[in-house]
C-alpha cells in the first residue's frame, strides 16, 4: 500500500516537472521579430529597429472585411552601446518579450558598414541560441536600416519576407544578387582567402509615406518601395565598393552562384540581338604556381536556351548555333574579366582565389597569405575560359523576322 502511494506521489510530482513549464512562454507574451535593422546615431551609439509581426493584421486581409485595416507589422527601436544592450533596452518600450527564432533578415545601414565595419556587431547573433545564423543579411543602400524596416509593402505584407523573396528571386532569375546568410558572412570575414559580399536593398520614392498603411493600398506602384540594389564589397570588415549589373553578375559567375541568368549578345553588328538564357552552369576555379608566380584559372561551363531574337537568324542551322555559342562565351568572359579587374582594383579578394590557393598549395599559401589582399591578389594573373552551349530554342526554330525579311 505504501508503495502505491509512493508511486502516485512520484507520478504527480514528475508531471509538474517534466511538462516543461519551467521556461514556458505563452504566445500572447511574445513579440515575434521578423527583421532587425542596425544603424549608428550621431552619438556613436547603435540604434536597433525591430520589425515585429502583428499576427491579426497579417492574416486579416485574407479573411476579407474588418481585418486588414491596421499595419501588418509594428516597429520598435532602441539605442545602446552594443547589440545585446539594444535588445534588452527595448523592454522599456515593448509589452512583450522579443522572440528571435523567426528573424530571417538582418539589415545593416550603409553608413555603419562603411565607417565602423560589420565586424563588431555580428557576435551577438551567432552566440544567441534563439537567433538563427541562416538569417539573411543585407545592407541598406543609400538609406538607413531603420527606413527599410519601417517600410510597408503590398503583396508580401511583412516587408522582411518581401525583401528576402525579392533578393532570392533576383538571384535565381537574374543572377546579380548572390544572397548571403549571417553564417557565410562570418565565415568569409574570418577566412584570410576570401572576403564577404552582401547584397544591397534600397528604399525608393517618397520616404515619408513608407510607413503608412496607405503605401500598400494603391494599385499603382507604391509611393515608397523596396528594391534590390547591387552587392556590397567588403574589405577588412568595411564596405568599400558597390557592384551593379554586369560586374555583379561576373562576380556571381566566378563564385559559381549563377542559377540562371540572361546573356545579351550582338549579331552582325546589331546589339542587342539575341537573348541567351543560362539554364545551368558550373565554374571551376583552380590555383597553381607557374615559374614561382601564383596563377588562377577559371573555367566556366554554361548550358542554356535561346530566349528571344530580334534579328532574322536561322536557329535550325547548327553552324549558326555554334557562332552564337562563341559570342555568348565571349560576352560571359568579358563580364567575368571586368568583375575580376574591379575586385583587383578594390584590393579585396571577394572571389575566393586565396581559398583556392590554400586548398591546392597550403605551403605556398602560408607565404602568400599575409599580404594577399594588398600585394598578391591585385597583381594575380587570371586565365578565364568559357564554354557555352545552346541546347534548345523554345517553341519556334526560325523567327518570324526571317519571313518578314523575305517578304520585303
Amino acid at each position, binding site marked *: 500500500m505504501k508503495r502505491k502511494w509512493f508511486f502516485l506521489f512520484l507520478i504527480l510530482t*514528475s508531471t509538474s*516537472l*517534466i511538462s516543461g513549464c*519551467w*521556461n514556458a512562454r505563452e504566445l500572447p507574451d511574445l513579440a515575434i521579430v521578423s527583421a532587425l535593422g542596425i544603424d549608428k546615431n550621431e552619438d556613436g551609439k547603435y540604434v536597433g529597429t525591430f520589425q515585429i509581426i502583428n499576427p491579426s493584421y497579417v492574416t486579416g486581409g485574407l479573411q476579407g472585411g474588418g481585418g486588414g485595416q491596421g499595419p501588418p507589422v509594428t516597429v520598435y527601436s532602441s539605442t545602446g552601446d552594443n547589440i545585446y544592450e539594444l535588445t534588452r533596452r527595448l523592454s522599456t518600450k515593448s509589452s512583450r518579450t522579443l522572440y528571435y*527564432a523567426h528573424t530571417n533578415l538582418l539589415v545593416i545601414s550603409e553608413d555603419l558598414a562603411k565607417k565602423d565595419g560589420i565586424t563588431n556587431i555580428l557576435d551577438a547573433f551567432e552566440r544567441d*541560441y534563439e537567433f*538563427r*545564423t*541562416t538569417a539573411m543579411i543585407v545592407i541598406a543602400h543609400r538609406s538607413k536600416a531603420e527606413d527599410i524596416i519601417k517600410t510597408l509593402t503590398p503583396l508580401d505584407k511583412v516587408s522582411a519576407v518581401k525583401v528576402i523573396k525579392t533578393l532570392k528571386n533576383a538571384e535565381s532569375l537574374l543572377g546579380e544578387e548572390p544572397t548571403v546568410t549571417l*553564417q557565410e558572412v*562570418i*565565415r568569409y570575414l*574570418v*577566412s584570410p582567402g576570401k572576403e564577404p559580399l552582401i547584397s544591397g536593398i534600397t528604399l525608393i520614392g517618397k520616404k515619408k509615406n513608407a510607413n503608412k498603411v496607405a503605401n500598400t493600398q494603391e494599385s499603382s506602384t507604391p509611393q515608397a518601395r523596396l528594391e534590390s540594389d547591387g552587392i556590397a564589397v567588403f574589405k577588412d570588415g568595411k564596405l568599400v565598393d558597390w557592384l551593379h549589373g554586369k560586374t555583379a553578375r561576373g562576380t556571381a559567375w566566378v563564385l559559381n552562384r549563377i542559377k540562371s541568368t540572361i546573356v545579351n549578345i550582338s549579331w552582325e553588328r546589331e546589339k542587342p540581338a539575341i537573348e541567351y538564357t543560362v539554364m545551368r552552369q558550373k565554374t571551376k576555379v583552380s590555383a597553381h604556381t607557374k615559374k614561382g608566380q601564383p596563377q588562377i584559372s577559371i573555367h566556366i561551363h554554361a548550358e542554356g536556351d535561346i530566349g528571344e531574337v530580334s534579328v532574322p537568324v536561322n536557329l535550325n542551322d547548327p553552324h549558326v548555333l555554334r557562332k552564337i555559342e562563341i559570342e555568348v562565351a565571349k560576352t560571359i568572359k568579358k563580364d567575368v574579366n571586368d568583375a575580376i579587374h574591379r575586385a583587383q582594383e578594390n584590393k579585396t579578394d571577394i572571389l575566393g582565389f586565396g*581559398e583556392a590557393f*590554400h*586548398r*591546392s*598549395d*597550403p605551403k605556398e599559401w602560408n607565404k602568400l597569405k599575409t599580404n594577399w589582399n594588398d600585394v598578391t591578389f591585385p597583381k594575380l594573373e587570371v586565365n578565364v575560359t568559357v564554354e557555352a552551349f545552346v541546347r534548345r530554342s523554345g517553341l519556334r526554330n526560325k523567327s518570324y523576322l526571317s519571313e518578314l525579311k523575305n517578304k520585303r
Partner: protein
Amino acid sequence: MEKAKISAYQLFVLIVLFELGSALLIPIALEAKQDAWLAILLGMAGSFFLFLVYYRLFHYYPDILPTEYMQKIVGKSFGKFLAFLYILYFMYLAARVLRDFGEMLITFAYPRTPLFIVNALFLLVIIYSTRKGIEVVARTGELIFVLIFFLGISGNILIFISGIIDFKNLLPVLEEGIMPVLKTTFTQTLYIPFGEAIVFAMILPYLNQSKKAKFAGLFALGLSGLILAFIMVINISVLGVNLTSRSQFPLLSTIQTIQIDGFLERLDAYFMITLIFGGFFKISLYFYGAVTGIANLFNFKAPSRLVYPIGIVILLLSITIASNYAEHISEGTKFIQLPIQLPFQVIIPVLLLIIAFFKHRKKRGK
C-alpha cells in the same frame, strides 16, 4: 554479479550507442583541423588494439568481473585498490557525460532552468533503468538503435538534399603533415570516445555467447568510428573548419543550417533526440559499471539498492566538477587525457594482461 544474460547483438548495439553518445555532441579532434576525421579513424584503429586487450583479459577470466580478476592477477589487497580506482573512474566519467548533456540542454533549449534540475531529471531515468539491470538496458538499446539509425539516415539525406555540403572545405588534406593528426589521435581520439569502451569489460561477463564478443566488439567500434568520422566530414564540409571549431555543439550548428525550400528547416529536434538517447546509454553504462563494481567489491547482496546513493553522488559530482562549460570541456578534451584516461584505458589493462599471460603460462606449465 547479477544473474543476467545479454546477446552478442545487444553488446554490439550498446557499444555503438555508447560510442556515439557524447562524441557526436562535443567538438572532438578539432586540433587536427580539417583532418579531424582522419584523427577519428586512427583513434578507431587504435581502439581495436585496446578492445583486443580487454577481450583477452575477459578470455582468461570469462565468468568474473574485472573488479574480481584484478584481485586474482595482482593480489588481493592491491587488486581491490585498483578495482576501487576503476569504480571512481567510472563514476567520474558518468558525471562528466551527465554534465555534457546538462550543459547542452541549458545552452540550447532551457536557458533559465538550473543545471541541477536538468541533470536530476535525466539521471532519474537512468537510475530507473539501471536498477532494472543490464538486460533491460540492453533491450532498450535494441529498440532505440533502430530509431537512431532511422534518424541518422534521414538526417543525412536532408543534409545532402539541402545542398549545404561543400567538400572543398576538407581541403587541403594534411596541411601541416601527419604530425598534428597523430598528436590529436594519441592525446584525444584514442581515449575519447574509443578507449572509453573499457567500461564494457564490466559488461562482457554477462554475454551468453562469449565467443562472439570479439567479433561484436570490433565490429561495433568499427561502425561507430566510421559514423563519427563521417559526421565530422559532414560538419566540416557544411560549416568549414573555423566555424566547426568555434561551435560548442558542431552537429547542432550543422543541422540548424538545413533549409529545404523554405519549409523544412529548424530540425534541431533531430539533434536533441539522437543525442539524448546516446547520452542515456553512455551514462547508464558507466553508472552500471560503477554500481556492479561496488556491489562486487564490497559483496553487496542487492546491487539494485546501490543505485540511489551512487546516483546522488554522480549528480552532485556532475554539478561540482567544473564551474563553467569551458572549464568542463577543456578538462575533458585536454587535461584528463594523459593523467587519467591513458593509465586507466591503456597502461593498466596492458600490464594486467601481461601479468595474466605469464600466470596462465605458468599454470599450464605445471
